[in-house]
Structures are given as structure tokens and as C-alpha cells.
């Protein structure tokens, strides 16, 4: 992930008055006041037909929020005593929720506003391990309920996901009359769930065997990646054809319970990705992710998947998906298309700055989006323990890549506003690179096999809304980061609000090539520009924290320490700001706290490349950052040490 995260541009002189736009200009976050004493820890959310919002807490309560659009919402406790609910759905005006151990139907038979019947739709096996959360339900077109199940972990091998009882790590499909069919396997931490036009989608979290978070379409018999759940694949009811032995013939499981598998650059067996596996072992239901959400950039712990059903009421992304993230307190956007009959598409940043982890989302009846969450146990950038908010479209059109479609020889980008045609036609204003993630038993994966993809041509449509770019060296199965770095809008010369599209190119469509003479772009070094004089275009609240409030006192070796602005550019480029703030604790420790440890530059470099979670036991483990150029790491290490 090299050049695609350059975020600074030269602006033409006449726009020097305007600050670059921020997400807040287009989508406002409104806090919903939660009554004192309610520990909301939102884990489930749904909207009733009358516009009231139902929210469930991880503490087992279900609240109906009346007048959630007003300044005085009223919380009524509808049900209580449920076991760590992590999802709600409403069907025929009846509330359903997934507890740790069962799918429950809540009914108020005597109409006193409180549930009095807690009916067990289906009770599934559970071993009692702390990590065995169950998520859902999402309701399918046939009225059945989809529930996903977290794996457990080992004892001495606490890092290794395990499926101790059926159907942990699976999706269960439960009929309205309580019959369960095991539907798909290979899940690890399937907190992300969504029913999109009758198709069930799920999202997993980075972890062992999962290099990064992602979303996938789940079909019957699919294997989504994590081997633990295959313990039950032989069960007579299982539609899953994949077996563990086939995985382990291609990937060393390194399942010694005493030795935690750490990242190895070169292994004995050839490096593989889940995409490679799906090609190497066809017909067994291996389903590579439809859209990867690059770790640390678009999220660290994927949660709710919801489609924009507002037909324009929520802005220009009608029909696209929004995906929540617990750890980064943000929402990403996903554009989906089908190529060769399978879903794939592009993921973009959408909105950051939520006050807690984002877990669940639900549409209000006024096209606003209710967002609820919690961060207990896993930390989040938003530092409140729980939150309930409303995301509201201001009506102003942001300048964004509306969609990115795969082409036989590149991509077609559709913008929300007409582009400056001259800039858009210049191939040097685009950066495209590609990378993938390893499929291995190690916790997460760095971006690997990173390569540059030269842009050889750019055709701008007559109305200025679409650009078709011709890109070399496309690789099927790889994530292509498309960054129209130098493209500005025609009016007001706005830069893109979010500059990067991450397209998961599982299949390259067939068809005719673009009708354009190809050119050779300038080299990357010539294109790379860091203007230390412009403010970084980053999400609001991260910027407020990151921007230093004055020049720190020069130290003896200040000449060798980079400026704050250059540091900020590098921190953003290499996604450090995803988890670190300067003075405040976020997903990771603050730079001030890191500086207190007085590491030498060499020590910090080693720890950035290969982090030691035991050094910071209260924090989420850091992903290895060996792909970052060492020179940049050393510059940042020296700069971090000057923080006070």
C-alpha cells in the first residue's frame, strides 16, 4: 500500500480560501440522548413500522425508543434478562433476537408494553466459552432466520479458533417453526450480517486465517475461510463439502498448541490466498470474499451490513451497502456488482467519528440512519462505552467516486459530480496498485505481493461523470487500490472526499477493450507530491486530535526529525492514524504514551514491524507493519519520540 494513500494535492490558487471539505459537511452525526442509568451497549437494532427504533443491549435488555427523531426520545424497557443479545429483527411487528444460546421471539400478549412471552424459536448447542457470541437474526425472503455463530478459542492455544460444539463458526438457517438447517461454514467472528435484496451477506473480523475483514455473499454449502467449523462438516445435515485436510495440504496449519504461529515471510509451502485456494480446489464451496475491507483502513472489526434503500433520500449511494466497524468507530461504503455471476466490488471510506464502536445500523423512517454500538472488551477509536446516534444526509452532494466497475482492461469510475475533464483525462492523476492477503493460521496478514499498476489511458464521458481508465497488470483475486489522486471536480475544484477505492477483482470481466491510444505514465517518484503546507484531508475528529497545537520545542537533534505536517502525512499514508492518536488513547496507545517508553529508533522500528502485544496488554493487538518502507518507519519513530 504505497502511493495510493497520498492524500495531499496542489490546489489552484483561487480556492485558497476554502478548507477542504470534510465528511461532516455532507453527513451529520446527531447524538441521541440515552437516559442516565441505561447501560446501552447496543448489540441489536431494528426499526418498527411506526418509525420507533428498537435497540437491544449486551446486558440483555430490549428498549423501544419512541420519538427517536426528537430531542426527547423516550426509552421503554420492553424485555430484559436475555443472554448478551447481538442482533434484532422485526417480522410481522414481532421482535426476534439472537441470544448467546438461542433465537428468541418476544411477545407482549397483554399489551402492557412489556414482553411477557419469551419464546424459544431454536436453541443451539453452545459450550460456554466467552467468545461464543451469536449474531442475528436477519430475515430471508422465505421468512427464515439467519444466525451466525462465533468460534471459541483453545486453552493453552488461546489464539486458535475452535469449534467446540456444532454449529460454531457456521451460519444457521432457522425456519419460522423452529427447524434449523446448517447453512454454511468457515466463519470466525461473523458479527457482520446483512440481508441484501434477499441475499444473505456476512462480514468477518481479522483474526487467525482471516487476513483482513471483508464481506461475502453466503450461499448454502459455502466455506468462508476459517477451518475450525469444518469439525462438523461430516454431520449428516451438513451441506458443506469442504474438508480441513484439503486446506492443510496447501497451508501448514501450525497447530502446535504450545507455539503461537507468528508471521513468516517465506514458508515451506507456496504462499496462498483464499482466492488461490478456491481455484485450486474447485467445487467444494470455497468462497473468497466479495469485497475486502483493508485492515486498519476501512475497519478492524466488521459489523452490520445494510443497504441504502432510501432511493436518494440518504444521498447518491442508493442501492449500495454500508458496513459498520466496531474498532474504528466508522462506516465504510461498498459498491457491489456481479461479474461472471459472483459478487465483487469496491469499498470506500464513508463516515468516521462515531462516539463508540459501530455495531448495528437501522434506517429511520425519514431516511436517516440510526447507528448504535459498544466498545466493551475490544476498545474503539470513539472512546465512549456505548452510543446511539443518527446519521443525517445534509442534502449537499459530496464529490466522491460513486462507483467503480471492473472493465476488461481496467476500471470505470462514476463520480457524483462532473469532473474537471482536463485533469481527469491525464493518466498521471491516477495511482493504481494492487495487493492481497495471505491465507494462513497467523492472526491477520500484512498486505503482500504489492505491485504498481500503471494507468495507460483515461476516457472521460461527455457529461464528465464517468471515466474509464485502462490499467496494466491487473491480477484476478487481488485488491486494486484506485486513487484518482489529481482529479478535481469541475465546479469549485473540489478534491475527492475519499480518495481511494479498494476494488476486489475476483474476476476480470470479458468484453472489448477501451478505444484509446495508450500512453506511458510518469514514474511514481515524479508523481509523488507531499505538500507540507496544506492541511491533511482526513475525517473530522481524527484530525482535531492529530493536529499538533503549536510547534514542539526543538531538541538537540531536531534537524533530523521531520516536521509535524510531514509526520501527519506519513501517518495517514501508512494508516497509523487508524489506530493511534497523538495524545489520546484509541485502538492503540497514544504517541505520547509510546514516547514515554523511551524506545530507541531501532527498537521502535522492530516493534512496528513485529509488534509485541504483551507490551500493551490493555490494547487490541497491532498488525505487523513490515510493508511500510523502513525509511518512513525510522522518520516516524524519531518523530514519535518527540511527543510530550
Amino acid at each position, binding site marked *: 500500500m504505497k502511493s495510493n494513500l497520498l492524500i495531499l494535492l496542489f490546489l489552484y490558487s483561487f480556492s485558497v480560501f476554502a478548507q477542504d471539505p470534510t465528511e461532516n459537511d455532507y453527513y451529520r452525526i446527531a447524538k441521541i440522548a440515552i437516559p442516565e442509568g441505561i447501560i446501552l451497549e447496543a448489540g441489536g437494532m431494528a426499526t418498527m413500522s411506526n418509525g420507533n427504533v428498537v435497540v437491544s443491549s449486551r446486558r440483555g435488555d430490549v428498549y423501544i425508543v419512541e420519538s427517536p427523531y426528537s430531542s426527547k426520545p423516550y426509552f421503554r424497557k420492553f424485555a430484559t*434478562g436475555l*443472554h448478551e443479545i447481538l442482533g434484532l429483527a422485526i417480522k410481522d411487528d414481532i421482535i426476534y433476537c439472537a441470544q*448467546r444460546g438461542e433465537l428468541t421471539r418476544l411477545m407482549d400478549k397483554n399489551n402492557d408494553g412489556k414482553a*411477557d*412471552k*419469551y419464546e424459544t424459536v431454536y436453541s443451539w448447542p453452545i459450550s*460456554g*466459552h466467552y467468545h461464543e457470541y451469536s449474531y442475528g437474526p436477519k430475515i430471508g425472503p422465505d421468512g427464515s432466520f439467519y444466525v451466525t455463530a462465533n468460534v471459541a478459542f483453545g486453552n493453552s492455544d488461546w489464539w486458535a479458533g475452535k469449534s467446540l460444539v456444532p454449529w460454531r463458526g457456521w451460519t444457521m438457517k432457522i425456519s419460522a417453526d423452529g427447524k434449523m438447517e446448517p447453512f454454511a461454514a468457515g466463519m470466525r467472528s461473523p458479527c457482520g450480517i446483512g440481508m441484501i435484496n434477499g441475499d444473505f451477506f456476512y462480514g468477518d473480523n481479522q483474526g487467525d486465517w482471516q487476513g483482513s475483514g471483508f464481506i461475502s455473499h453466503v450461499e448454502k454449502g459455502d466455506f468462508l475461510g476459517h477451518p475450525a467449523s469444518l469439525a462438523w462438516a461430516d454431520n449428516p445435515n451438513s451441506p458443506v463439502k469442504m474438508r480441513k485436510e484439503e486446506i492443510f495440504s496447501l497451508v501448514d496449519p501450525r497447530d502446535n498448541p504450545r507455539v503461537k504461529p507468528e508471521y513468516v515471510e517465506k514458508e515451506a509451502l507456496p504462499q496462498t490466498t483464499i482466492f488461490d485456494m478456491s481455484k485450486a480446489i474447485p467445487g467444494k464451496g470455497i468462497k473468497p470474499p466479495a469485497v475486502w475491507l483493508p485492515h486498519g483502513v476501512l475497519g478492524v472489526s466488521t459489523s452490520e451490513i445494510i443497504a441504502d434503500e432510501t432511493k436518494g433520500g440518504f444521498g447518491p449511494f442508493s442501492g449500495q451497502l454500508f458496513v459498520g466497524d466496531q474498532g474504528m468507530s466508522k462506516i465504510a461504503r461498498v459498491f457491489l456488482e456481479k461479474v461472471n455471476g459472483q459478487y465483487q466490488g469496491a469499498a470506500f471510506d464513508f463516515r468516521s467519528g462515531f462516539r463508540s464502536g459501530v455495531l448495528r445500523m437501522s434506517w429511520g423512517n425519514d431516511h436517516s440512519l440510526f447507528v448504535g454500538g459498544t466498545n466493551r472488551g475490544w476498545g474503539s477509536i470513539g472512546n465512549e462505552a456505548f452510543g446511539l446516534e443518527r446519521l443525517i444526509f445534509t442534502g449537499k452532494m459530496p464529490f466522491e467516486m460513486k462507483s467503480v466497475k471492473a472493465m476488461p482492461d481496467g476500471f470505470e469510475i462514476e463520480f457524483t459530480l462532473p469532473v474537471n475533464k482536463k485533469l481527469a483525462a491525464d493518466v498521471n492523476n491516477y495511482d493504481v496498485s494492487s495487493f492481497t492477503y495471505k491465507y494462513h493460521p497467523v492472526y491477520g496478514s500484512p498486505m503482500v505481493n504489492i505491485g504498481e499498476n500503471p494507468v495507460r489511458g483515461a476516457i472521460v464521458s461527455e457529461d464528465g461523470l464517468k471515466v474509464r481508465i485502462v490499467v496494466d497488470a491487473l491480477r484476478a483475486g487481488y485488491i486494486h487500490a484506485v486513487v484518482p489522486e489529481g482529479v478535481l471536480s469541475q465546479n469549485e475544484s473540489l478534491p475527492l472526499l475519499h480518495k481511494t477505492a479498494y476494488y476486489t477483482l475476483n474476476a476480470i470481466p470479458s468484453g472489448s477493450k477501451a478505444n484509446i491510444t495508450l500512453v506511458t505514465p510518469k514514474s511514481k517518484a515524479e508523481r509523488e507530491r507531499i505538500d507540507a503546507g496544506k492541511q491533511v484531508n482526513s475525517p473530522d475528529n481524527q484530525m482535531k486530535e492529530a493536529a499538533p497545537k503549536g510547534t514542539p520545542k526543538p531538541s538537540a537533534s531536531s534537524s533530523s526529525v521531520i516536521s509535524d505536517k510531514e509526520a501527519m502525512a506519513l501517518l495517514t499514508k501508512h494508516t497509523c492514524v487508524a489506530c493511534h492518536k497523538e495524545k489520546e488513547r484509541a485502538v492503540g496507545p497514544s504517541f505520547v504514551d509510546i514516547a514515554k517508553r523511551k524506545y530507541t529508533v531501532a527498537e521502535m522500528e522492530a516493534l512496528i514491524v513485529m509488534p509485541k502485544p*504483551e507490551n*500493551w496488554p490493555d490494547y487490541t493487538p497491532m498488525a505487523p507493519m513490515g510493508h511500510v518502507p523502513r525509511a518512513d518507519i525510522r522518520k516516524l519513530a524519531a518523530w514519535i519520540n518527540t511527543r510530550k
Partner: protein
Amino acid sequence: MEKIFWVCLFWIPMTLNAQEYIPLEDLSFFKPTGKTNWKLAKDASADLSKKDLFSLTPGTGVLVNLPSEGNMSNLHSANEYGDVDISFDFMMSAHSNSGFYLQGRYEVQLLDSWGVLNPTSADCGGIYQRFKQGKPGGTYEGYAPRVNACLAPGLWQHIDISFQAPKFDSNGKKISDAKMLQVKLNGAIIHENVSLSGPTGGSISEMEAEKGPFVIQGDHGSVAFRHFSVKDLSDKPAFLDPVNYQIYFGEFKGREELSAKKPEVTGIADKLTWDLTSNTSQFANSLKTVLNIPTAGEHRIEFEIKGKYFIQINGKEVFVEPKEEDNYRRTLLLNLPAGKVPFEIIQIKTNKSVNNNLGFWISGPNFRNTALHTTGSYLSASTNEEITLDASTPRVFRSFMDVMKNGKRIKRVVHSVNVGSPDKLHYTFDLDNANIVQVWKGNFLNTTPMWDDRGDGSSRPLGAVLTLSPHAFFTNKSTVFSQDNLGENLLIKGYEIDSEDIPTFNYMLDGADILDKTVIINKKHFQRTLTIKNPNPNQLCRLAVGSDIIKTGENRYLIDGKAYYIEVSGATIETGDNQKALVVPASDKVQYSIIW
């Protein structure tokens, strides 16, 4: 409670032993009383409601008091004790009253307080009040138990008392109060660190002393005792000679490297500590001292040290921690001789990023756990707030629930429903076995284990717990004693809550639809009613399983060594290997009470 003055006529030298179990083959543990209200028996039984009805099985092992007019005296232990841990079982008869005095001066009340919702200091487990001298009727202090943890008359109850005697200086002036360090009644902590300013009412003396006998009150009602276990802890604790320390700066892989180096700093400290210089990131400390052990015997050391470390006691290496990352609290048992014992710790810290810690404790056959480190040397890792759930209104709460027996977890119930009541009687229902697995008295639940940080999804009962059967409730004649669960024959349907917030469970078993509701009768006990549609004629309801089941009335049974009662009609007792089961056939209506 009148004041009774006793003068100690004898002083019997003590032999300091570790844990002493009193077999009660005879009354030699006690001083003769000159009366005959105190007797020995093999077992005793009392009625649930008839006052003072005690019947005895002849034999030994159980101490019984049957007072009568003119024949009632208290009972003193022959020995005297200072700091001590004592535990015993006791059984009250209905409306009875007794008391257990530490040093003959500080009373823990024993009373039939069954059914009392808000106990006072005069209730079972209370620390009795003090009487104002010379002022008729004036009382003060007195400490009510945290919860009413007592059981019904006729059941064996258990109490654990940790007591610290008052301390005096060389002139005999008191420098610290007597303390109830902890009192547990039937497993529930009812007192913790209660300072007693002076003797409670009915003491043998108003003068406090270093040692005194146990006194059991015998003039108030029939009561039985057994299983006395005493641990004399009045030894002075082990202490350290001055600690010689040598500190080496730098990053060391092992202690072999130290012998070639000269320490940067040396000196003498009072106690063990890691914090001796300004170099807190990478160092190796050698701490050499001598342990002064008062009495030979088995000692228990506890230590929590950051970094690599090596502990040598009495010339032997007793523990080596070779890995830097480890940071556990460890416990070791060691036999140590009396007198001076060499003691050395080497601590090597190379990980700059972690905090430092050195905690070291020792307890011995006759002294309590004592810290040998400075206050600043050890900071406890966990400072979690406790999160609890009360049942001031009836409530239903689901969590994982660990079922315990004898301090060990025998099962984690995963589909469990906990039901709490403002009557302070609560139960856990195992949906997979259609059974009440445990009942408890006191407060509802400690939910810290599930709501602090990630949690583990489980909660704990906050009171005196009675573990019932973890087995399935339904069985048939051939499987009465097998540990079966209901498996796929069971369809869980959930529960409905009535207008009083009481749940009725609903499930189907082999085609029979069952409604299952438990209510509280007279705020004193549970009554469970199952309504079974189309009951299976071969099916049995297994109401209880225990080591023994004794029928004590027309419909009343004592279960499992007199741990609780079941009241039910039409039941039979089945006998297995060292086990008995109380069963009734599954019929349209099965109803029984759990009384404890």
C-alpha cells in the same frame, strides 16, 4: 443474655499444630461442666417446626445440647486460643438459640432465623451486641450478617470463622482490636474485617486477653455440632533479617552473567522490593536475606514477580521463572525448619515496556499470610469494580452458570435461566435438563464475570448456595442413576411471565407438553408445579438425588445428609450405588417443595 463471669482456673499449655480436626469421640476437647445437658451422639435430628424437638442416634461424633430446667451450662474448650481459624457444622431446632464465643468473649450468634428477610445482629450469624456497663438495657455495636444465609431447623449448616485476637504491647495496653477477619455461613460471606471494640454481651470476662477458650452457649435451646476444625494461628509470623541487595544495570539474559559483573548499587533494605534505584527499565536485582521461621512445618509461599526470577530458600532452588513475559501469581508448599533459613531472590528485568512488580507472601502452620515486601513493591493488577444485579423486583436473567460442588466446578450450565425474588430466595433453571440445579439465599447475582471487559458470559450467585441435582429431571426406571440429559427428546419452548413477574417454563418431552412453574411459599421455601399434558406412563420425575434420603414425616424427606427437605406426596425412594433418588411418576400434575 445475662452476663456470666467466668474465672479461668487452669492454663493448659498448648501444642502448636497446624489444622486440628476434633473427632468428638469423647468430650476431652472441652472442660467438664458439672452438668449433663451436653451429650455425644452419632447423629441428631430436629423437626422443621416443633420447638426444641431433638432426637438422637446413639454413638459419638456429634455434640448435642439438650438443656432442661436446672441442667444447662455453657461449654468451654479445654485449650485457649488467640488468632485462630475455626469451622464447624451446627444444627438448630425450631426457635432455638445458641452462640459461639471466640476467646469466650466475642459471640457469633446461632439462632433459628429461617425466613427472616432482614437479619439483625441477633439473628443467625450476627456478631452480638455489646452491653453498656452499668446501664440497664443499653446495647451498642452488634453487626448484622450481610445476608440471611441460615437454613431451616433440622438441617446441617456450616460456619467458617477467621478470628484475630486483640494485640497488646509489653505493658499490657491494647494496641489493636479483636477482629472477625471473615465469617462465612453456608458458603456466603456474612462478615469481613469487623473490628470489635470489646467483649460482646455474655462474655466470660470484660477484660480482653491474648488468648481465651471457645465457649458454646448452652442455656437457651437444643442445638447440635460436629466436624470442629481448628487452626491455631497465634504464632508470630515469619520475618526477615535485613535484606542485602546488589543491583546490576543492563540487559542480562541470565544470572550467569552477574557473577562476572560488579553491582552498580549495593545496600540494605528492611523488606523485599524491586524498587531500589532510579533504573526501572533494565536491571538485575539480587536480594539476600534470612527468613526467621517460628515453628517447623509446612509453609506456603506466594509470589508474583515481573521478569525472569530465581528463588532460593534454605540452600535449595525452589522456583525458577526462565521467561520474561510470565507474570503469574504462584503458590508453593515448602517444609521449613524452625529458626534462621537463608533466602535469596534474583530478579532480572529486560523488557523495558512493562511495569515492575515484586510481591512475596508467606503463611505457616500457625501464622496467617504475611507480606514480606514493601507496600510500593507490589501493585495488584486487578482493580475491577463489582457489578451486581439485584432482585428487588422479581426478575429473570439468563447467563452461563457454573454449578459448584465442594469448591469445584462440576458443570457449566449454558442454557440457564436465573430467577430472583425480593424474598431473597433465588434459583437457576437448566433448560437442557428441565431442572432446578441450584437454589440460594441472599442477594441475586454477581454479574462482574460477564460484564467486566469482555467477560465470560457467566454470573455468580451472591449468597448461600445449595447445589441440587445437575441431572436431568425426567428419567425412567432403568436410568434413575445414570447421568443422562434429555437430549433430542426435549424441545425447549421458552417461558412466559405472569402479572407478578414469575416465569412459567414451557417445553415438550417425547410429545408431552409441559408447563413448569416455581413459586415462593410464605417467603420461606420453593414450590415447583409441573403440568404435563399426555404424560408418558413410563416416565419418572427425579426430584432429588443424594447420598441418603430419610423420610421424616408423611410427605417430608431429608436429602443428602440433611442438606435440605423435599415435601411431596406419592414419592418413592430408589436405591443405587451409594446413592438414593426420590422419584414420582410423571402425571398430569407433579408438585413438590424444596425447603432449606
